[in-house]
């Protein structure tokens, strides 16, 4: 049965289904229970599943996320909500020094099946402290997995997989996508981590993106086709680490031209990694240098008028595409 639900509801369904499936799954976060979630992702879950499974935490990210890491070492599967991923920075030590490394430093004696999730995006005029996109930072850490779903369908399937995975998985959502409606089938499905998705096929140019930049690319692809007769393929990475290099390379071998698009910052961002990978592995297939469109390299600006400019817009992607086509 096909139906449309929004991204936020899709995540909520994933959480509810996993809570019902596995007694070890529980949610902790600020305002997740009685307040129904700062962004209403967890709406209704506390009423339905109660105090044991949906727990309001004080404002104490290092404390409760570190606690989740410890609990996961004993086999629980905590799903920790960050009100914003920007607040992960006060819990960095727990999320990196502990979650990412205890398996390694114990020589594989233990593992941490924890999920940390929440929105990680700019574009909502909340200033630099609330607009970080740390997928590159956490993706840089061996031991961690990072996913950035762009659609409701992907968000649900990836979230369920993340909860079942035996390693720490950090799921980065997007408040600007929470209300977007997408086709999501009724019933159970999962999406593996590390598998990219071709969201639109084309023959002239590849646009590689993740998170909301995928939506930007889909719009840009329409413009390119309508106004310039350029058929762009849009590859959605979905998962940053593990990474599906093959789907990207396959597209590049077909189109010979690439623009890598991201809301991440350009310096050592995800796009930089993808670009290096393409030049290394598909150099002979390229008819033009790999081009990039990232957020303008400055802290996220507050000014609503200008923040729109700071993040990649469809017209920025079109312009960059035309420069290499």
């Amino acid at each position, binding site marked *: 049965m096909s139906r449309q639900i929004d991204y936020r509801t899709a995540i909520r369904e994933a959480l509810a289904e996993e809570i019902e499936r596995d007694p070890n799954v*529980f949610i902790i976060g600020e305002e997740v229970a009685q307040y129904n979630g700062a962004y209403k992702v967890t709406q209704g879950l506390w009423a339905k599943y109660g105090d*044991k499974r949906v727990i309001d*935490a*004080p404002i*104490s990210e*290092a*404390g*409760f*996320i*570190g*606690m*989740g*890491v*410890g*609990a*996961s*070492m*004993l*086999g*629980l599967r905590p799903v920790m909500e960050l009100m914003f991923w920007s607040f992960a920075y006060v819990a960095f*030590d*727990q999320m990196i*020094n*502990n979650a990412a490394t*205890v*398996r*390694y*430093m*114990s*020589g*594989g*004696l*233990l*593992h941490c*099946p924890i999920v940390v999730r929440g929105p990680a995006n700019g574009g909502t005029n909340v200033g630099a402290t609330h607009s970080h996109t740390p997928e590159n930072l956490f993706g840089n850490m*061996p*031991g961690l*997995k990072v996913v950035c779903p762009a659609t409701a369908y992907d968000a649900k399937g990836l979230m369920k*997989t993340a909860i079942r*995975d*035996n*390693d720490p998985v950090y799921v980065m959502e997007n408040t600007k996508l929470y209300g977007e409606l997408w086709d999501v089938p009724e019933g159970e499905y999962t999406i*593996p*981590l*590390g*598998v990219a998705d071709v969201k639109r096929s084309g023959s002239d140019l590849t646009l590689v993106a993740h998170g909301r930049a995928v939506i930007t690319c889909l719009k840009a692809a329409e413009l390119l086709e309508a106004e310039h007769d350029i058929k762009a393929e849009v590859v959605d990475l979905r*998962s940053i*680490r*593990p*990474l*599906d*290099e093959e789907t990207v390379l396959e597209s590049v071998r077909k189109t010979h031209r690439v623009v890598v698009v991201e809301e991440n910052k350009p310096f050592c961002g995800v796009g930089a*990694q993808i670009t290096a990978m393409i030049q290394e592995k598909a150099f002979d297939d390229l008819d033009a240098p790999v081009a990039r469109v990232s957020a303008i390299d400055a802290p996220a600006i507050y000014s609503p008028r200008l923040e729109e400019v700071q993040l990649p817009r469809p017209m920025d992607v079109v312009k960059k595409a035309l420069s290499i086509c």
Partner: protein
Amino acid sequence: MSAILKNESGTGAQFAREAINQSLEASDKVRFLRDMVRIRNFEERSNKAYSQGRIGGFLHLYIGQESVAVSAASLLGPNDHMITAYRDHGHALAVGMSMNECMAELYGKATGCSKGKGGSMHYFAPDKNFWGGHGIVGGQTPLGLGIAFALKYQGKTGCCLCFLGDGAVNQGAFHESLNLASLWDIPVIYVIENNGYSMGTSQERSSAYPDFLAKRAEGYNMAWDAFNGWDVYELRAGFHRAMQRAHNESRPTIVEVATYRYRGHSVADANSKVYRTKEEIEQHENLFDPITRWKNTLLEEGVITEEDYRQLNREALQEAEASAQFAEQSPWPAEADITADVYHEVDHQTESGLTGKHFFND
């Protein structure tokens, strides 16, 4: 200033009469002595290996504090757990890890407890309810909370003893953990091993506090206790009280133990006799050495003879020597091992582990 509490709350004999100590068999008492002696011999041998260039990085010796880990470990039931910081050799041996695996870890060998991937500061033995060995000061405090949280979630009657130093009490993560522990009735026991110094900084120079660091518990509506760290009876009695509170009421406790490290912060600490006086160190070694005191207690009780003690020492020395030989002769990890034990799913070759690129080496 030394860390000596001069606790007036009881005498050794009084603590010996407590039920938890009355129930001890002579063999238990000898085992505690043996464990302390083994830890000391292990560390003396590792110190030698360090000076011979056999061990990399840091080596934080626990010498002088052995009674704390041994007494705590002696009380662990099947659902009681331990986690500590980087000064972890004593805790590891006390919970039953072998000298061989611990020494080999120091040497960075494949036979080490962490296959040579963790080193001195990162020993683990989940099968013995020992969860590390953590290098970031205070970083283990939320983990200890989480272990205790998991026990409660699973409906088990148990607790987690989470050890930290007197320097770690000023870390934010510790305070966050205290608040959560009390707020959520989590059966965690924070054990401040107060050896008077964090590296070269005395507790007076690092902490604002009235008389006991553990008193900070009051701010979190939490119970606290403080006791001397050189007497096994006193330690067992004190830990037992906190563990009872955890088991019966699911309430946390901060316990502060007065102890002392004889050596430098790490073996590489060149200043260990600069920030404190020689007399201070000697005072502790001569009057408050936990091994000597426990030995004397057992001699007085007629549980051992001087010859028994010499024999224990000889055996521990031999065991430590053999562990160094074992480590010496053990193989290095293979180069391919560098990327093993990073992801559970990759190690187990699951579908998840075989999907997508996890490592970016080529």
